């Protein structure tokens, strides 16, 4: 975002704040390469909110699962304001579709998004240089420019963007009350969006198993992927953790890890909007969103459905059509 965009964003926030219970946005994190979700209630707090390529968190999750409680108990809550990127906005739509959020309770500030950074990709490129003392970072054209301790360095965006952003079809929020900034051009076309799925499918079946064994072996079942997912709604009742029914023992074998990921995947089938949060938060760098990308592609091919683009649509596995599938 340019300085004028930020000013525009702050202006929109300022205007909206008096009518809102609270405004959910991002604040600077512990260094210039991090941001963190924040809840603002006062103009002063709102003035600290930022938007930059490190605002990687999907705030739809915050609104849906840990919304700020009303400041005054007993009073009817006002609307909750939330800043959204393209992907966040699709999660909000999916949540409205399923009745977890009500449109009229939200005030949505849409932000056209040029992409967010995958810090591990960046660190792999930059290594030592960016470990400490980074002063600022911004997107300029097709590069990420970082002012580090040892001067300025520039990285090509396609080498440092998150995988979800490399394949993003909806960088512009799909649902919003106001939009901060001009729309941006999507980075990926329909065909390109699933090229990572193709890469796995080009392997013979046995090698695909080996691929997932290798990836999932690192899983520590911290459940960050599940908890970060705006649409994982069982939350504290997740069958991966309940002892009754008991789907999973505490062992850390591959079968437990496969079962857990099948659980997350199947429960998200026809619902996942590919926001990529599950993959971003994974401390073990497991490409968990890839699993859901495949499910989404199947859903698209079989049932011609894409999640999180229309608040009116019914998720395909919550309904049926007697005529279909020819079986």
């Amino acid at each position, binding site marked *: 975002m340019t300085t004028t965009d930020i000013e525009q964003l702050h202006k929109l926030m300022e205007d909206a704040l008096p009518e809102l219970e609270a405004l959910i946005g991002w604040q600077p994190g512990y260094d210039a390469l*991090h941001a*963190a979700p*924040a*809840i603002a209630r006062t103009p002063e707090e709102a003035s600290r909110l930022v938007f930059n390529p490190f605002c990687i968190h999907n705030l739809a999750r915050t609104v849906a699962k840990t919304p*700020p409680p009303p400041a005054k108990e007993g009073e009817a809550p006002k609307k909750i304001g939330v800043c959204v990127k393209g992907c966040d906005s699709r999660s909000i739509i999916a949540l409205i579709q399923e009745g977890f959020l009500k449109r009229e309770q939200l005030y949505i500030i849409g932000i056209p998004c040029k992409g967010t950074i995958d810090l*591990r990709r960046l660190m792999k490129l930059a290594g030592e240089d960016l470990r*400490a003392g980074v002063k600022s970072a911004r997107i300029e054209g097709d590069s990420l420019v970082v002012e580090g301790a040892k001067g300025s360095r520039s990285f090509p965006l396609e080498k440092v963007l998150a995988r979800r952003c490399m394949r993003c079809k909806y960088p512009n929020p799909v649902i919003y009350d106001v939009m901060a900034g001009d729309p941006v051009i999507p980075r990926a076309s329909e065909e390109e969006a699933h090229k990572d799925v193709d890469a796995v499918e080009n392997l013979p079946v046995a090698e695909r198993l080996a691929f997932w064994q290798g990836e999932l072996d690192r899983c520590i079942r911290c459940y*960050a992927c599940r908890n970060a997912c705006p649409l994982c709604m069982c939350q*504290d009742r997740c069958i991966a953790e309940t002892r009754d029914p008991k789907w999973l023992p505490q062992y850390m074998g591959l079968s437990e890890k496969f079962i857990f990921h099948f659980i997350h995947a199947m429960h998200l089938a026809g619902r996942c909007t590919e926001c990529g949060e599950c993959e971003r938060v994974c401390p073990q*760098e497991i490409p968990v969103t890839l699993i859901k990308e495949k499910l989404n592609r199947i859903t698209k091919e079989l049932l011609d459905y894409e999640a999180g683009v229309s608040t009116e649509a019914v998720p395909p596995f919550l309904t049926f059509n007697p005529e279909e599938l020819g079986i």
Partner: protein
Amino acid sequence: MSGKIYISRDGLAAAMEKLSRTMDVWTPAASAKDKWGVEFALYEPGVKPILDRQSTLSPKKTIFPQVEPLFQFERTKDPEDPSKTLIRLKDRPDAKPAIIFGAHPCDARGFFTFDKVFMEGPYKDPIYKDKREKTVIASVVCRECDDACFCSAVGGGPAEKEGSDIWITPVEDGYVLEAITPKGEPILEGLGAAATSQQEAAAAKVQEEAAQQVIAGGMKMTGETAEFMKHFEDKAFWQSAIAGCISCGVCTFVCPTCYCFTITDEARDTEGDRLRSWDSCMFYHYTLEASGHNPRPNNTDRYRNRLGHKFAYFPEKYDGMIACTGCGRCIRNCPASINIWKIAQSLKEQADACM
């Protein structure tokens, strides 16, 4: 003779190979091909040690694995009286000697928290004790502090030797190794050539430079019980501090001092294991009671506990020892970039402001 030895960068694998003949050698290595993360793995030929970057998960798993069977059990019928069930227990084998080769000073100090709980209280955990006593810790002088580190604020430091048995100092082209406890000495015997005085001087310089790094603005923390208790009921404080916390277990799983565990019996038919596995105070189920009541139902309550445990309850109980080594892992790996250090500090600042 100083007893210091030198191992060249290229000779590291051979040294580990040699050690691995008699003991488990844990060393940080890339978690997988093409991944950025570093993980402690058992050395085997082909494993390339990475000694200059912090691992994602701390090495606590080498002594306190994520899951470990406490014993195996088997149910049989009593042949004398078939209405009775007999339970036969199989003990676990004794631990193998091991070395953690390439811990960081903050990793090594992490075990102090475990020691207090598992070895120094009224109940001594034999399984932990066995492994702990048989494990040698070789730490690297740390030159990789970043903005999440705050080791020197909580009693440690990038060149703090306490907690380690062997001191590994990276110098040009190799490492100078030095035993700093009697436990470390036999390990180094015959592992490399004696260090030359030049190499020793280079190592001393590296150590000195490492010790001079200013971390966390030179702040110091002691137990913050009073400040913490002042903020205990301050819901707004906790809410704004952890707005994005998703109650995942990442912070506790990566932490070198988080020691909470759960015990479950995992059985099939007549056989099974009693397992001890990592639990996390950030999980809803951690405090869920059988009645269905949960005293810590939301993320603010849980985070408050995590911070309180490390900076208030633990020091109160164990002579002021803070149950955090300032390694910064929970900050770096937190999906919501929640900063335990900043929150602990702001407790203090705000308490000061109140006075």
